């Protein structure tokens, strides 16, 4: 016993070091699974407040540009609205609403790491929950991963853990959208079979398989494509519509049918 105590006293710094290293490594490794440790994310009161304060100052500098973007989006939506043949009054049946949309602002963005997260200034108070989709006017951005009362962190599509169902526009060939961490303006679409005719410049949109995003939200265009190692599937480089380095106003989408979809899926899993 005495020897053990003497050993501990003698090597106390090394033991302390190893202890702290193991703690940090276990936090890191544990978070390689889908959902990270609850404590290690920037969606908490302290970091949220700091980023929010800094954002209230810096957001004035790009107001012009943001206004321009919003006007452009309004114009596009009005184009859609006026060119659609509508009856005199628009009927709004609350039972027919499939998606609810909330607006938010990005207060922290990163795109240089292999696992990027974006912080937005809406949280539980504004009914933001885990696994809601986040998009911008131009295209898809990511999925809500953690929420605190006033803030939420978004797992960006520029994240090794990101995996989103996507398809080639106007077809039903779908694959999964992943990121190889190399460039912040290019993501990869995998599992598109070899027999699909592809062209550089084809548009990629979200697929119908996802219960998070509505179908046909733009993602990007095909930049180049190769066959993968097994020679039976394509590996496609997709150039994003979004400029991931400059994002301010975003929309959070909630699929009101999602609980039902998840219920059905778990029923199927239970049956097997």
């Amino acid at each position: 016993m005495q020897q053990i105590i003497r050993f501990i006293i003698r090597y106390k710094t090394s033991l302390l070091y190893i202890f702290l290293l193991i703690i940090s490594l276990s936090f890191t490794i544990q978070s390689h699974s889908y959902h990270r440790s609850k404590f290690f994310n920037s969606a908490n009161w302290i970091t949220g407040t700091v980023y929010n304060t800094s954002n209230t100052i810096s957001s004035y500098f790009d107001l012009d540009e943001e206004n321009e973007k919003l006007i452009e989006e309004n114009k596009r939506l009005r184009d859609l609205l006026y060119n659609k043949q509508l009856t005199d009054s628009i009927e709004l049946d609350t039972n027919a609403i499939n998606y609810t949309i909330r607006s938010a602002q990005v207060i922290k963005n990163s795109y240089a790491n292999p696992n990027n997260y974006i912080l937005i200034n809406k949280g539980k108070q504004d009914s933001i929950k885990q696994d809601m989709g986040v998009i911008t006017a131009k295209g898809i951005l990511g999925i809500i991963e953690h929420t605190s009362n006033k803030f939420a962190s978004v797992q960006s599509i520029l994240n090794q853990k990101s995996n989103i169902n996507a398809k080639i526009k106007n077809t039903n060939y779908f694959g999964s959208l992943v990121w190889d961490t190399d460039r912040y303006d290019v993501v990869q679409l995998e599992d598109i079979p070899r027999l699909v005719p592809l062209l550089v410049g084809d548009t990629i949109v979200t697929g119908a398989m996802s219960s998070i995003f509505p179908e046909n939200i733009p993602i990007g265009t095909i930049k180049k494509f190769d066959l993968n190692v097994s020679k039976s599937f394509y590996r496609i480089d997709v150039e994003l519509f979004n400029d991931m380095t400059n994002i301010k106003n975003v929309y959070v989408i909630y699929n009101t049918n999602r609980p039902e979809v998840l219920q059905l899926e778990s029923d199927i899993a239970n049956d097997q």
Partner: protein
Amino acid sequence: MPMTNSFYFINIIRFTLLVLVQVLVFNRLNFFGFINPMVYILFLYWYPIKENRAFFIGIGFLLGLAIDFFSDTMALHAASTVTIAYLRPAIMRFVFGVNYEFQSFKLSNTTRAQQITFLALLVIAHHVIFFTLEFFSLANLLLILKKVIFTGFATIILCLLFGSLFSARKE
């Protein structure tokens, strides 16, 4: 230097300022799309030499954890800072020889070359650990090397600039 109030005061201010500067300025720099220098390492470079080692390792861990909290990097920064905090005495012995253990030793009395080597070794050790853990696979060896070299270079340059900016203060 004794554990006086001014010692605590200076280090708490330094800790807070470096964390804020790191997360609000340098984490957003994205120079060439990927270079985010980690100037907060300066805290471990400036910290007095003759302090309690266990305490120093604890502080290193807290510093890394604070940065992790802000940058959504799990505990990657914590693992790196705690390691360089642990290795610092060995690095100092390597750079300054045995005389760093003398009472009269001061960082400001050493040569410029020695200071730069000391800083560079801290930064390189930190970056190697950080980026290896971040990618978590050796398949990305080239990418890790690229990030270590470029980010390390930027970190060292900026730390030297910051160092000379505040060098009027006597440690």
